């Protein structure tokens, strides 16, 4: 069991000692029984911290903001940032370290094990409650959650509302940390690639019809890109005309600049955006599930990233975020890399 008091004590200690600048954790929302990101600067504020299966956010994203913020400071505070991570989030930090985006000394990691549960998928919960609002959720029992709505209490088997990526997860404990809270419980998940295999078994036309229907829903809000810790490029390739324009660029030059994707949310442009993002995530995606969670129109974005995760394991024996010393996937190669597809 992860003891919330242990977490609070540890964070209070490092804040009092001045070991970290501030701490990134979770606190409960004012109006709902769900968590939201919390930024603790003063030791007395640790009482706000919470830890339960509603702590779904991947806080590693805020390390990207911290780096940008620090870069604009004249006399930067060199102390690390404290952060609290689950298994998948810790792998995200490993990828950022592997790519030399941040240094290991820039973060003080309190790793928390998910043990036998994971995080709740709010959409699944909403469907289960038939759109009634959850007022309180009790996580006490191991396999069941007790949800209170204004109709009374309801027992919900955890398997029915846990996020898909949690049900398929095998890193339910952090792989990089300074402090480890909870127990390291090995778990055999369901086949992580079952949903991928289902789609792979369809004919090309069926596959296309499935994806076209999903991709047509896209409104190009770019929330999936904004929430991903690995999408840290200052200028994204789909917005690729901003940074390269200066005061001296002529109108003619601006007109001739290569635009990889148009702004219009039409099928071909949406496909280009999602496919390029999936390819850029190959060997880097840790399946935290955030991209799919934040999508306002429910596109199954995880499936695209998961497909390449499967290929990367099968073709190159590579998994993202376990070893920050290993060279990144697409910056390395083996003599014996598969090439039967090459004439």
């Amino acid at each position, binding site marked *: 069991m992860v003891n919330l008091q242990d977490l609070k004590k540890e964070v209070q200690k490092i804040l009092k000692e001045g070991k970290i600048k501030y701490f990134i954790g979770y606190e409960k929302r004012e109006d709902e029984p769900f968590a939201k990101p919390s930024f603790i600067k003063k030791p007395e504020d640790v009482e706000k911290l919470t830890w339960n299966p509603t702590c779904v956010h991947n806080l590693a994203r805020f390390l990207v903001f911290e780096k940008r913020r620090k870069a604009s400071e004249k006399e930067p505070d060199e102390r690390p940032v404290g952060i609290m991570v689950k298994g998948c989030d810790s792998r995200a930090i490993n990828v950022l370290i592997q790519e030399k985006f941040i240094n290991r000394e820039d973060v003080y990691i309190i790793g928390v094990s998910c043990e036998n549960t994971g995080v709740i998928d709010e959409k699944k919960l909403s469907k289960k409650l038939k759109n009634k609002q959850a007022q309180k959720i009790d996580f006490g029992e191991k396999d069941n959650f007790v949800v209170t709505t204004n109709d009374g209490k309801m027992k919900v088997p955890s398997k029915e509302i846990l996020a898909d990526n949690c049900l398929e997860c095998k890193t339910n404990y952090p792989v990089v940390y300074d402090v480890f809270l909870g127990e390291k419980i090995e778990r055999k998940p369901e086949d992580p690639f079952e949903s991928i295999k289902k789609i792979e078994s369809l004919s090309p036309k069926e596959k296309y019809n*499935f994806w076209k229907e999903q991709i047509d829903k896209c409104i190009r809000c770019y929330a999936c890109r904004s929430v991903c810790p690995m999408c840290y490029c200052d200028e994204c390739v789909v917005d690729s005309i901003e940074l390269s324009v200066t005061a001296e660029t002529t109108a003619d030059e601006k007109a001739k600049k290569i635009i990889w994707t148009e702004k219009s949310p039409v099928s071909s442009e949406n496909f280009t955006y999602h496919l390029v993002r999936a*390819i850029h995530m190959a060997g880097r995606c840790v399946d935290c599930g955030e991209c799919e969670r934040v999508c306002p129109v429910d596109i199954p974005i995880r499936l*695209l990233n998961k497909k390449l995760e499967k290929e990367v394991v099968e073709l190159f024996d590579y998994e993202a975020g376990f070893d920050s010393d290993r060279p990144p996937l697409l910056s390395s190669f083996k003599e014996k890399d598969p090439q039967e*597809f090459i*004439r």
Partner: protein
Amino acid sequence: MSDQFEPKIVAFLCKWCSSAGSDLAGVSRMKYPPNVVPITVMCSGSVSPLYILSAFKRGADGVLVSGCHPGDCHYIKGNYYARRRIALVKKILEFIGLEPQRLQMSWISAAEGSKYTETIKDFVQELKPLGPQTRLRRGK
């Protein structure tokens, strides 16, 4: 003459090997179908997935990426990176429903003019029954 579908192929050929190979085919007057739009790139490793997606978006029916044989890359390692990258691009395009025969990769050296013509001939034959590529094409 029947109004048969003629596929358009965009070929990214690396300057030092494959593009030279295609020039050899030309100079030797080897016959091969005129369906190819050749684009010379410095190295197969410089072919970004965006080039391939752009080609399909603009209406290419097939895309070929061709480079030096492993071990012979002018920049030593470029084709090894390309091998990994194009493998993944192929897999994801197949996953969203693009017919797998539409994206192909080959190793063609500067001396292999005939391999170039054979590759193109076979590619055109494979694409003809598939018809025009409409799935990633930019609509109105």
